[in-house]
């Protein structure tokens, strides 16, 4: 009985396999419009919400101390120097460590995604400190390679995609198109970007271009931003005059002149948005979109103001610092 059952299962298994193959072939034959590339620059969802990004090393060893310092120096002299960002920590990773987790292997340096996709991801970034197997030419110019590569990979870690992937990149550069694509064009096409494989100087010699800095600052602010007296986390509730509308919870994190808002609906949906906030605590309209036809806009300041909702109309809000 069990043998018959086994035979039957094998037969059904083969049949299903054939069906699978047939469907796959039909699928291949069908034109798939979703294949159209959307190669752009920055991945909006990958932009970190916090300006303080923890960094740690996966290997629990004192090995490569000099190389680790080169990486830290390169990042400090590029992305940190030109923005309000701070990469903090740089110690050994623990289980559950958040932020960027860097592994060291003799393979092509890489990141397993863009920006905050890497948050807490083990070996989310991999750097090469020896180049004995991969790109051996770097083994004789370690500092140069390690520093320039670090600047490029940290660009990915901040959410920036390859410049040559953009639709407006010259044809000869598109040949090098690879990797994760962004969904946001921040600045005009930039040949001199550290994120451009077509840059006549490899990795831009680890120096951010003018447009790199402009793009960086549009997301992560200018360096040495004066801290805002409203810096911190705020929790608020929106209320509407319409009795059919349930109050939404909104949290806001203020960092310098940036306000990051997060809306959580009673049914658990969330949406985030960023706005500017001045030194008096006033927003320049903070609009949080749940979808194209479902959003709220806060008008006023962090302490309180009016709100406009697409489905609930007008209301008001109040925030309390946590």
């Amino acid at each position, binding site marked *: 009985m069990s043998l018959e059952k*086994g035979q039957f*299962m094998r037969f*059904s*298994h083969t049949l*299903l*396999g054939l*069906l*699978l193959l047939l*469907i*796959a072939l039909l*699928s*291949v034959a069908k034109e*798939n419009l*979703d*294949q159209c590339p959307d190669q752009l620059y920055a991945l909006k969802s990958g932009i970190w919400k916090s300006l303080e990004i923890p960094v740690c090393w996966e290997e629990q060893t004192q090995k490569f101390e000099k190389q680790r310092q080169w990486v830290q120096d390169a990042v400090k002299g590029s992305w940190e120097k030109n923005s309000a960002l701070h990469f903090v920590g740089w110690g050994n990773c623990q289980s559950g460590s958040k932020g960027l987790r860097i592994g060291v292997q003799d*393979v*092509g*340096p*890489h*990141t*397993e*995604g*863009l920006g905050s*996709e890497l948050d807490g991801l083990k070996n989310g970034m991999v750097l090469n400190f020896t180049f004995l*197997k*991969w*790109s*051996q*030419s*770097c083994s004789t*110019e370690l500092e*140069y*390679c390690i520093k320039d*590569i670090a600047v*490029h*990979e940290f660009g*990915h870690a901040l959410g920036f*995609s*390859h410049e040559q992937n953009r639709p407006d990149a010259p044809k000869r550069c598109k*040949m*090098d198109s*690879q*990797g*994760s*694509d962004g969904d946001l064009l921040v600045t005009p096409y930039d040949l001199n970007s550290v994120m451009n*494989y077509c840059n006549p100087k*490899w*990795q831009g010699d680890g120096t951010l271009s003018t447009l790199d800095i402009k793009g960086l600052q549009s997301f992560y602010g200018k360096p040495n931003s004066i801290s805002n007296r409203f810096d911190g986390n705020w929790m608020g509730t929106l209320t509407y005059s319409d009795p059919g509308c349930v109050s939404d919870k909104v949290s806001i994190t203020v960092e310098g002149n940036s306000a990051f808002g997060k809306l959580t609906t009673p049914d658990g949906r969330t949406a985030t948005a960023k706005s500017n906030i001045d030194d008096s605590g006033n927003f320049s309209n903070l609009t949080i979109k749940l979808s194209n036809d479902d959003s709220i806009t806060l008008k006023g300041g962090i302490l309180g103001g009016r709100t406009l909702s697409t489905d609930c109309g007008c209301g008001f809000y109040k925030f309390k610092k946590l």
Partner: protein
Amino acid sequence: MKLNFFHILFFLLPIATEIHAQTGASSAEPPTNASLTEMLNGRNYFHFSKNFSCRSNDPRHTIIKSWKNKIEFKEERILVWGSLCNDSAKSIPFASIKGDLFISSDLRLIIYKKQVLVYKEKEPILCEEGQWCPLKKDNL
């Protein structure tokens, strides 16, 4: 490609059959998302194309031999690498790709977005030196 019920059905069923053949269970229920990601976690699949090469992001922009795609299953996500020279994988939540994915019952083959990829336990050796296989030495 939008999520297609039949794609899910046909890629789940052979796996379910296999699982129940091993356990001796009498009914074939499709595995859950969690058990599927657990089964595939850590597995790497490759698509090869003869003479395929890519330009590495090293100081000499070396042209190297490469596989044509690699898909890595990592916890709740898949990483799509494209080529050996790619340094930033496309990270996609597993739950959102099922309509584009077929998996053979022995987990040795997948079809993802028209492309057939085979399972390799270790990174494939592309030349005697391993994976760093320059095809031209001059700068481009």
